[in-house]
């Protein structure tokens, strides 16, 4: 206390105080202005949600997808993709795209849940398409069968996403992402919309019930204990061979060198 009170009279105390005050006010203003006007969207109805989504679309998406979402030379038309597609692409941060060279990659979402919902409502208003779902609406715990899900996964998904959902390589730098830690609704939406290189699994190919089973199996794989010790990435013999050579043979050669040294 004494040090502070003596510092009060110091000749640079005044300027420091002014700078600190300016910094605080500036930061507060910056944070306040960066926050979306959450208050206003909370109370809007569907039509305002659509018009709000349209506003965001014109601002953030139309340069590639066209002013009426009709698509262009570098981006597909969004008419008829449905709210599921928007929820998946925007909600996982894949859209807006940062790098157009390979494929949209998962990153921190640019738009928050409200804005994503508005965008989804706008795109859904253009033409009917698959609807977005919520995690709560997916009753996979109750209606899914993980053994069946595993079989469906191995038949339809494992050839790209690996046997344990760890992801895999596709041609020319494209890839099937890891499915570990992905929210159930995004897995469901990806199946019905077929983003990027992924095929579309309509309800005729894989019924909604079966989709829930796949999600249930994936959740089980996600939380599966590593029964035999360290998982080594669950990518098969490549990491096993590496460990066998480096740690296995490495330790043994070390032991051999040590034994040969002792005899001297």
């Amino acid at each position, binding site marked *: 206390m004494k040090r502070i009170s003596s510092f009060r009279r110091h000749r640079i105390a005044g300027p420091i105080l002014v700078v600190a005050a300016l910094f605080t006010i500036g930061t507060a203003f910056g944070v306040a202005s960066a926050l979306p006007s959450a208050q206003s969207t909370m109370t809007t109805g569907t039509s305002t949600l659509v018009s709000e989504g349209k506003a965001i679309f014109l601002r953030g998406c139309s340069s590639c997808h066209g002013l009426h979402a009709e698509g262009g030379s570098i981006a597909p038309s969004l008419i008829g993709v449905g709210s599921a597609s928007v929820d998946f692409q925007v909600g996982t941060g894949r859209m807006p795209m940062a790098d157009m060279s390979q494929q949209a990659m998962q990153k921190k979402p640019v738009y928050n849940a409200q804005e994503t919902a508005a965008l989804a409502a706008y795109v859904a208003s253009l033409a009917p398409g698959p609807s977005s779902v919520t995690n709560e609406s997916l009753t996979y715990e109750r209606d899914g069968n993980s053994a069946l899900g*595993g079989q469906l996964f*191995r038949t339809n998904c494992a*050839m790209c996403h690996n046997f344990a959902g760890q992801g895999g390589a596709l041609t020319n730098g494209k890839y099937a992402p890891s499915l570990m830690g992905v929210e159930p609704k995004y897995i469901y939406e990806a199946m019905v919309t077929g983003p990027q290189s992924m095929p579309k699994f309509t309800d005729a190919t894989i019924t909604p019930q079966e989709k829930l089973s796949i999600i249930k199996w994936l959740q089980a794989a996600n939380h599966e204990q590593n029964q035999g010790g360290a998982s080594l990435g669950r990518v098969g013999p490549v990491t*096993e061979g590496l460990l066998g050579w480096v740690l296995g043979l490495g330790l*043994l050669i070390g*032991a051999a060198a040590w*034994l*040969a040294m002792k005899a001297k």
Partner: protein
Amino acid sequence: MKKSVKVAGATANYVDERTGAAKWLKKNLTKVFPDHWSFMLGEIALYSFVILLLTGTFLTFWFDPSQREVVYNGSYLPLSGVHMSAAYDSTLHLSFDVRGGLLMRQIHHWAALIFMSAIVAHLFRVFFTGAFRKPREFNWLIGVGLLTFGIVEGFLGYSLPDDLLSGTGIRIAEAILQAIPVVGSYLSFFAFGGAFPGTAFIPRIFIVHVLLLPGLFLALITIHLMLVWYQKHTQYPGPGRTEKNVVGYPLMPVYMAKAGGFFFVVFGVTAFLGAVASINPIWLYGPYTPGQISAGSQPDWYMGWLDGLVRAAPPLETHAFGHTISWNILIPGLIIPGILFTGMALYPFIESWITGDKREHHLLDRPRNAPNRTALGVTSITFILVSLVNGGNDIIATHFHLTINGIMWFTRVGLFVLPPIAFVVTKRICLSLQRADRDLVLHGKETGRLVMMPNGEMLEVHEPLSDAKKWTLTQHQLPEALPAPLPPSATVGLKGKIRARLNRANAVQIPAATLTDLKELGDGHH
């Protein structure tokens, strides 16, 4: 004398009077072996083999090698109610419901990986030190046989559990079999007892895996070791070591203790890996059905280079006389491995043909003193490594954010470009090391101590080497070019010309320092 000693003596005498073992044991227990860490690489392979036999026997108590269809109702719930083969079902049972079963499976698989890598490391040691030279060519051939059977044995073990990865491997093996021109499809039908996958294959490879090949291994390993025993072990050059003696320690008690101890070290390391690191988690792969496949399906590492070659092959096919020849499988899957393994088996004979050296060798070469051989070895390793990288191209692509096509093209070009570069670089390095040795003998070790002479001259003090070290660095004999007026038979025709050319290349060496060199440098002159 203590009573216990008396009893032991009486027992030994009793046995000796009936078997005459004392004389044999006395001679052989004092047999001397040279000591070096690199001589223990083969031991690692031997001990892993013992571990494989023991753990493998344990596994057979529960494994059911049958492709009979069953419904799983064991304790691993995510597969509950799934239809699968009895082989896969019993492997799941072994992993989850047999006490210590998963640990044994994992030790077995880790021991198999270490077995193969120890064989390869042992092969490198034997090759680079020239231990395969006369009189050990037969043992080299047996070694090549063991390596080949090891690859097959490992692959069969990987195929037995009948999980998705196993079946994928068998499918590729079937494709390679079918790629053999004309008879391929017949061979495939013969091996599988009909169309793939059938129900005959797993029972068949089970017997090959647990009876035929282990028996062959036991026989070949026995001959391999008996030949080492009979021909004596090679040794690294050094003072007091000649082509006629072996400098080292007696079997009893030194090597008995060391080898016995080392067995437990090998067992410890494999058991440690088996306890802490998951290997081939078959329950995650699911049972094999021909309609399914996982991204990133790989063979175990000792087959990985083959897979990499197949992945690199461009799609080449020809159709002639009603037969399809799939060059894209035939060349990388059969022809290249055939050339590599034949070349490896024949190498001792090829080298002796090139150098004209028909003498016996019991002293090993330091790799730098055989630059051509060392360079050839590194060339082959480079080729295999590039293929091996391509075998894991999908895993490398996803984990290092590369494109799989980029890695494939790197391999396609690298397979032809990198091995020759490796040859030239290795040979240069070997010759430079020879120069460094020569320098060391003539001028001694640089100490980094600077001394100022009374007249102001600054000198760095060089410390002369010990006589033993000097001997080690200068004892080797340079490979000689074939005698100048070659016998007419030697250079006639293309074969003779190739031989003469290779012989000249082999004779490029830096002469070791001689006594005359030393004397010339001697008096006062630095």
